[in-house]
């Protein structure tokens, strides 16, 4: 067994884990944070995307032990029904989801996309979400949502600085 000391959504955890435990299973099964989904077994679909020290990664492709000493942000840490993140609001307003299975990973990836490129073109949005598969929407409304979120976040700039996109409690 390995001890992992890990920060998730601003809270510190310490657990004994088997080395082969994947980060996504640690989040879902050990911590009960089931917002992060598992859609494949091949690092392909992106449903499991979380932020590791503020940067998007596929949590099915990281061992929990490897994440020790780092900060993880899951969809639960991005916002909640009382205070939605502008990206979540935009997905809601622009109908960027249907069944919702891809949505947590998609939103996390889109936040990473705007971190790297705050004002992306439609082509850049499409390229930026290449690692997230959606079987429902045809992506059209997801692109609209990201465009809307980018505009909202730009208008809100003074309040929502880059620091806010880093994991809660990381600064």
């Amino acid at each position, binding site marked *: 067994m390995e001890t992992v000391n890990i920060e998730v959504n601003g809270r510190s955890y310490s657990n004994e884990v088997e080395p*082969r435990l994947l980060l996504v299973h640690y989040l879902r099964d050990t911590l009960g944070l089931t917002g992060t989904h598992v859609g494949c077994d091949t690092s392909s679909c*992106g449903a499991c995307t979380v932020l590791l020290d503020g940067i998007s*990664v596929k949590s099915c*492709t990281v061992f929990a*032990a490897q994440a020790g000493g780092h900060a993880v942000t899951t969809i639960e840490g991005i916002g909640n029904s009382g205070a939605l993140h502008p990206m979540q609001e935009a997905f809601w307003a622009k109908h960027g989801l249907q069944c919702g299975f891809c949505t947590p990973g998609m939103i996390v990836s889109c936040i990473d996309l705007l971190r790297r490129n705050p004002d992306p073109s439609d082509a850049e949005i499409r390229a930026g979400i*290449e690692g997230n598969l959606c079987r429902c929407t045809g992506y059209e409304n997801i692109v609209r949502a990201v465009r809307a979120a980018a505009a909202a976040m730009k208008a809100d700039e003074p309040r929502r600085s880059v620091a806010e996109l880093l994991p809660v409690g990381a600064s």
Partner: protein
Amino acid sequence: MNPFRYERAQSGAAAIAAAQHDGDARFVAGGTNILDLMKIHVEAPSLLVDINRLPLSKIELRGDSVHIGALARLNDVAAHPVVRQAFPMVAIALEQSASPQLRNMASMGGNLLQRTRCAYFRDVAAPCNKRAPGSGCGAIGGENRMEAILGTSERCIATHASDVAVPLVALDAVVNVAGPQGSRSIVLSDFYRLPGATPHLETVLVHGELITGLSVPVLPFGARSTYLKVRDRAQYEFALGSAAVALDIEGGTIRQARLALGGVGTVPWRPRAAEHDLTGAPATRTAFEGAAEAALTGARGYGMNDFKIALAKRTLVRALEMVAA
């Protein structure tokens, strides 16, 4: 996934020693390849040595080479101003690899050592000489649309999957390695082994050797370069064929050319005869087509991948036209 021991290396020497003492040990960097292979039982290491704490992430100009640490992440290399300026084809190849989340994790060292995407290699129930020496090759006579047409043997026809290795082989990148017997530097074109009778041996590395970084000589005309990747969809797919091209052109005449092909070779493919043919030639479509013929000399299709011979030629011609324009 099989159970294994996990160790986080605090120094390069400790990582090498840990791996050296266990024949079934593997290093893990970004994990984007080895975790996948562990999930499907193609890899089953007894010990995983995590090298992510080692200080091997720097990207910097040192003398007349760009040094890229083995742990530099693909996205960081692609975004680095020195890389973008000195050899755009490296940045383009990286931007067209995998997806943002994978490029955030994946390291340069791991990328060079990623295993083939051959479907038989990834299926432990199938015959595969690379995974299980002597068991046969499922792809020859099987589903081989994605497999190689250059550098193949009767034992294995699997393509090397890396995109960035293609421009790097054209640039004569040097792989810096530290191991139980000390350090050495290997030119990338000598780093990979053709499958021949031993497709399970893919590089000249010995067990326990750690890639510490790459030294990429600055090519005076490297700024005039591109990477063209042809695939089944616009994003997020491995190459059916790709070409890295850098040209030094003056007054319509090619003074020097650097070329490499991806998606078609068992190793990143450097067609030196074609480079030679282009030296001193006019930068015209006719010359480019002649070079493409030379580049594909000896190419052999296996049925479903026959189309790759014409595709590789056209990809190279188009990439040459893009750079010459």
